[in-house]
């Protein structure tokens, strides 16, 4: 995917995104990081055509997102949002089956492909045992996995996750990130996600995009992008960078 000089504003006064250009590499995990309100989620919204850019465009396989029909786009690209709503009595399996809707015609019925996609989605998110449970019977981490399962049922080559770990405790955070990694390594999915934790971003990403105030400060491999200077510039936090053989690169904040 290619982001070409995208500018976007919610209120047409202040720009949330200022003339952004970058490339999302297919088959890789890209993580967008940056302080609150820097435009991370907005960028994800632009990339998934939830918002239309005021200037510039996003290309998917050389085609502008604006020219792709919503249903076609939903076969290319699935999104898991940070917070989700659904009727409380919906079962896991039923919600996951909604992921198949882009593949159906208006009056089409579920076929074998749909069944298989739903089974695979439930299996890879480890939800087979919970399939007939209602959403309000699940824990926060399980709920998040259900929404990921719905996105997986869409069978798209690209998956976006907006702060998938924010409301979860450490166990569920790692569980989700390991799942994301497995989807990338085993199925070759292109992943774009927004994270808050720099160390998680370093550990689980092939590429990191650092944003500040609607602009991209740096993008590239974790080792290239995460430096003392860049972290200081974007977060106004002094950090120590450590590189050890058993942990890899990691960041320790030491003051502001």
């Amino acid at each position, binding site marked *: 995917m290619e982001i070409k000089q995208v500018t976007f504003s919610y209120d047409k006064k202040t720009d949330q995104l200022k003339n952004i250009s970058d490339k999302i590499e297919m088959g890789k995990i890209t993580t967008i990081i940056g302080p609150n309100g820097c435009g991370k989620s907005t960028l994800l919204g632009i990339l998934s055509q939830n918002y239309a850019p005021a200037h510039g465009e996003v290309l998917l396989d050389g085609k502008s997102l604006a020219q792709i029909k919503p*249903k076609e786009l939903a076969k290319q690209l699935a999104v898991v949002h940070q*917070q*989700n709503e*659904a009727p*409380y*009595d919906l079962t896991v399996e039923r919600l996951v089956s*909604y992921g198949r*809707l*882009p593949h159906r015609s208006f009056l089409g019925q579920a076929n074998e492909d749909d069944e298989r996609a739903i089974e695979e989605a439930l299996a890879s998110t480890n939800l087979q045992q919970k399939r007939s449970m209602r959403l309000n019977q699940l824990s926060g981490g399980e709920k998040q996995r259900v929404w990921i399962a719905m996105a997986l049922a869409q069978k798209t080559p690209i998956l976006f996750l907006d702060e998938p770990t924010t409301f979860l405790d450490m166990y569920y955070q790692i569980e989700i990130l390991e799942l994301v990694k497995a989807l990338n390594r085993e199925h070759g999915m292109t992943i774009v996600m927004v994270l808050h934790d720099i160390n998680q971003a370093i550990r689980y990403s092939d590429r990191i995009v650092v944003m500040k105030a609607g602009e991209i400060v740096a993008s590239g491999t974790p080792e290239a992008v995460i430096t003392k200077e860049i972290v200081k510039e974007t977060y106004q936090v002094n950090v120590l960078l450590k590189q050890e053989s058993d942990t890899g690169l990691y960041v320790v904040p030491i003051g502001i």
Partner: protein
Amino acid sequence: MIKKVGSFIVVIALLVAAIIYSAMTGSIKVGILDLVQGLFSGTNDQVEVIKDLRFPRIIVSLLTGAALAVSGVLLQAVMKNPLADAGVIGISSGAGLVSLTVVTIFPGLFFWMPLFSFFGGALACYLVYALSWKSGLSPLRLILVGIAINATFTGLGQSFNYRGSYAVTSVNQAISSIFTMKTWTDVQIIGLYGVVGLLLSLLLSSWCNMLSLQDKTAKNLGLRVTRARLLISVVAVLLASVATAIGGLIAFVGLLVPHIARTLVGSDHKVLIPFSALGGALLILAADTLGRTVLAPTEIPASIIMTIIGGPFLIFMLRRSERVYGN
């Protein structure tokens, strides 16, 4: 699953019982055997009278109830608000007012009443939307704006009563929902528009399901959200308007029935819509039958019975509305 199937069986059984009872009782009473025999032979005079007078009334009641209940389900899906009901938020009174105005000025257009009803209902629906939209629809603001619009249209409608013309009686009858004078022509009109509307709403059920997620999620699943909202609203207004044009102004059906239906069969619109249609049909037929038998020969209109049940129910719903659309 058992609860769902059981609920369907019970509501269908009750509906059949209500239809049979309603056909048998009233100023002319016949036994069930005479009724069935008379229907097939065509020689029983009493049954012939029932066929001409009571059957249209029963069918109109059934379709009015089904249409209003399903209209409620659709509006609730579109507005993401369990309190949306065509009667409460002014769609019915808008439909009633516009069709009345047109028919009073041009009485020759009586057959086109459902069409004018539709324009009136669409106008009211648009006003409610436009005036209560503030980066989303808050349940309370929607209901307040709806009540204001309802009051305005109802007031305008009632002002017809004070024009001092003798046309008043007929006009009054047209909006006060007495099913007494229903004929087979009415059955034809509501049968055509009502059944079309009900079938369309079944087709729209998967869109309704997608709208019960967040808009952005529905969009990511490939739904054109605005277009879906518009189409579902049109069907909802069509159902409410045709019900108002033929059955009169009846509030609360679209509030009460979908709510009970949700607790019985869940919020999946593929099941909720047909179940609400059956439940609405049962409710209005029961209300109408009750209204004409309790104080016979005086009749209490179904609309009044619904207001008596519906008012307290709305308060009950307002008190628990936060819990209906949870995370």
